[in-house]
């Protein structure tokens, strides 16, 4: 059953890679402006769930509905267009194009959707300022620190004003101080723009930036909202 008012919701997701079952009946839902942590040990199916929710992977069974549309009913091209215009992505490693400057990297999603260079870079610069990395806009990723690269990646995920941001271990490669600042800035920007954030993490300190958590274990996702009062 899909909860009323949810922006993105999945029910009964199943996905196997050969004989290995990654998802075994996972349910999920998120509302606009909400930050939901997807927690669970390595290999539990967290990233597979994220990829199915984002329309990157097609589940073997179950449905994913985004803003009233069934993702599995869309063509590959339609899903790609949706990802470019309505979703933002932040991953743990290697997201920036090494040959481009930070400004060009941040502007890339807008360029791909046909925005003129000048306008795209003006918007990108605003987000780089927001993420406190405007001073490195003319640098290439190899010339700046890991923390700065991740902030540029977060800025890039926000330039299209996405309605859902998918963040898969976004601070996994950063030290505590840098990681926390990136999380603060990401969640603050998301709340300001009413974007929903699916935050995949195995770290409790990262999950503490969310509004609620969903725990994935053995391919099943369990919303923990119901157990809060039980403790």
């Amino acid at each position, binding site marked *: 059953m899909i909860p009323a008012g949810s922006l993105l919701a999945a029910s009964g997701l199943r996905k196997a890679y050969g004989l290995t079952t990654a998802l075994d009946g996972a349910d999920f839902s998120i509302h606009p402006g909400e930050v939901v942590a997807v927690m669970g040990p390595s290999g539990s199916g967290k990233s597979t769930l994220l990829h199915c929710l984002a329309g990157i992977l097609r589940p073997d069974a179950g449905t994913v509905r985004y803003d009233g549309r069934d993702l599995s009913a869309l063509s590959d091209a339609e899903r790609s267009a949706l990802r470019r215009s309505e979703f933002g992505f932040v991953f743990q490693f290697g997201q920036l194009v090494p040959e481009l400057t930070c400004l060009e990297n941040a502007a890339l999603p807008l360029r791909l959707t046909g925005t003129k260079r000048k306008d795209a870079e003006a918007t990108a610069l605003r987000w780089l300022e927001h993420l406190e990395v405007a001073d490195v806009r003319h640098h290439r990723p190899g010339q700046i620190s890991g923390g700065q690269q991740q902030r540029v990646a977060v800025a890039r995920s926000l330039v299209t004003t996405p309605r859902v941001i998918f963040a898969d271990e976004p601070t996994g490669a950063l030290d505590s101080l840098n990681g926390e600042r990136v999380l*603060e800035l990401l969640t603050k920007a998301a709340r300001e723009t009413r974007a929903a954030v699916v935050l995949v993490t195995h770290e409790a*300190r990262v999950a*503490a930036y969310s*509004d609620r958590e969903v725990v994935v274990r053995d391919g099943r996702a*369990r919303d*923990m909202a119901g*157990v*809060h009062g039980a*403790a």
Partner: protein
Amino acid sequence: MSIAHTLLGLLEAGPRHGYDLKRAFDERFGHDRPLHYGQVYSTMSRLLKNGLVEVDGVEAGGGPERKRYAITDAGVTDVEQWLGRPEKPEPYLQSTLYTKVVLALLTGRPADAILDAQRAEHLRLMRDLTRRKSSGDLADQLICDHALFHLEADLRWLELTAARLDRLSKEVQA
């Protein structure tokens, strides 16, 4: 935390009245648990008796609360020794939670539900602390970080126990 040493340390900056001491303590260290006046005065009279503080002045018409205290050389040495002495690491044994998990397994109740409920409760507190941290000053951040790291350690134990429940169940029922 040693309240006596903390009050002594606060006196190193200069003499203060008991009320000022309480206020300085609460402001810096008493976020959740402000000191009672009684605690301050009983601690100060003990420090006075032990020669670690002295009365620097008494305001006219004053009872004991009007005394101004100053740290003595012996007091400064005592603070110095306390600061230099490492605290005894106290491994927080998860005795209550461990007992609950084992009892649940012994009685055929769902032990994973206990761990889930505890995880949710820990995360609820971690969210509060994270919010407080982002709106607070540096002192708030440091205090909240300390609590957050400890709660995170508990949660790692919870996750590890959750992953070992099958094995624990077999051992408990053997």
